[in-house]
């Protein structure tokens, strides 16, 4: 009886969970990281669902992503999906280097952990740079911009609507593209539009030369929120990287900290998979 009580006491004092072992078989630090990520996933889900709801409501006048994101560095011409495909590759690759750092931590291989963490940080910076370039192109827009009616409708020029061309619809140079992606060839109507419309260039929170301003608002907010997560992840990774270099974890005897920051980093990759689908593919 007394021996049992002592044993129970020892078990509870050896573990803050009080039962002698953690109910989920992991440390509370890792568990709280998981539950933080669940709440963060709810935030991202809500944002993407809000985007989806407005897109379904305004489906006939929603901009076509393949007309918006067509640039690739040092290459002229319309290359939809190429650049964002590369960004996705960079983020998946940095997820792989992160999980290899975790793996090296399990082997207590301090040097390998440092190398893989370093590569993960480089991947993070490459992604942030790519996103800055993507934003730059979206904000600066096309050379000719578009026409905005006093009532807010956006009429675009055919050269800025390569997706119509891809669908086999050929619009003459002087034509206009209506908000619902139809070619306007009636010269009287074009003159009527041009008489009252104002030229706009690029995208910001008020105007979007590619179509409905909500597209730009959601793009800036969701990719911005994701980009801020990537930035936070890079900062955390840098702190961990210097801890690895100074031998904090080899002295501590385990590399669980790498697993926790790794969970966060993979989550950032996971969110991008959804952003990629709903902003660029669908």
């Amino acid at each position, binding site marked *: 009886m007394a021996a049992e009580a002592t044993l129970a006491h020892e078990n509870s004092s050896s573990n803050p969970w009080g039962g002698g072992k953690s109910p989920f078989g992991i440390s509370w630090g890792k568990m709280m990281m998981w539950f933080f990520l669940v709440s963060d*996933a709810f935030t991202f889900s809500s944002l993407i*669902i809000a985007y989806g709801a407005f897109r379904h409501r305004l489906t006939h006048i929603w901009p076509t992503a393949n007309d918006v994101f067509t640039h690739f560095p040092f290459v002229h011409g319309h290359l939809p999906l190429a650049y964002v495909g590369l960004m996705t590759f960079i983020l*998946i690759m940095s997820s*792989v280097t992160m999980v290899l750092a975790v793996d090296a931590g399990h082997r207590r291989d301090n040097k390998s952990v440092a190398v893989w963490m370093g590569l993960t940080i480089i991947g993070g910076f490459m992604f942030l740079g790519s996103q800055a370039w993507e934003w730059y192109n979206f904000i600066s827009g096309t050379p000719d911009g578009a026409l905005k009616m006093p009532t807010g409708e956006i009429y675009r020029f055919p050269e800025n609507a390569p997706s119509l061309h891809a669908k086999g619809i050929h619009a003459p140079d002087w034509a206009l593209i209506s908000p619902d992606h139809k070619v306007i060839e009636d010269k009287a109507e074009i003159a009527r539009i041009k008489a009252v419309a104002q030229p706009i260039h690029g995208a910001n929170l008020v105007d979007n030369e590619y179509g409905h301003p909500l597209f730009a608002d959601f793009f800036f907010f969701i990719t911005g929120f994701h980009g801020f997560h990537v930035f936070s992840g890079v900062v955390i990774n840098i702190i961990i990287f210097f801890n690895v270099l100074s031998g904090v974890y080899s002295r501590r005897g385990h590399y669980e900290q790498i697993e926790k920051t790794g969970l966060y980093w993979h989550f950032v990759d996971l969110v991008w998979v959804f952003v990629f689908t709903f902003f660029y593919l669908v």
Partner: protein
Amino acid sequence: MADHNNETHGYYTGDMHNQFVPEHYDPKNRGVIWRTFWILLVITIGEVAIAFTSLSKELLEVIFITLTVVKAYFIVAFFMHLKHEKMSLAYSILLPFVLIIYLIAMSLTEANYLNLWDNMFK
């Protein structure tokens, strides 16, 4: 009995919290990591490739969303290691997302109705 194994192979952190950290190192881990990488890469390239085919918009949407969920599974199960955690942890993380499915259904139903309403008087 993977769970049993995890509990017996591990160590206490020895710091102020003195937590039990289960060990599950397996030399095959790196093979799994690279296999997951190739699966994610091939799916992403496949998605970009079929975006330029003449498949109908609706079919493409179904394919893209299915492949996205498949990619999410591989990231969560293997990169985030959830497949090898206890089932109780996996369920407490995954079950709340039933609410997200409900929110999607609710929001899109409402949005589609408003779309109809917007265009009714045009």
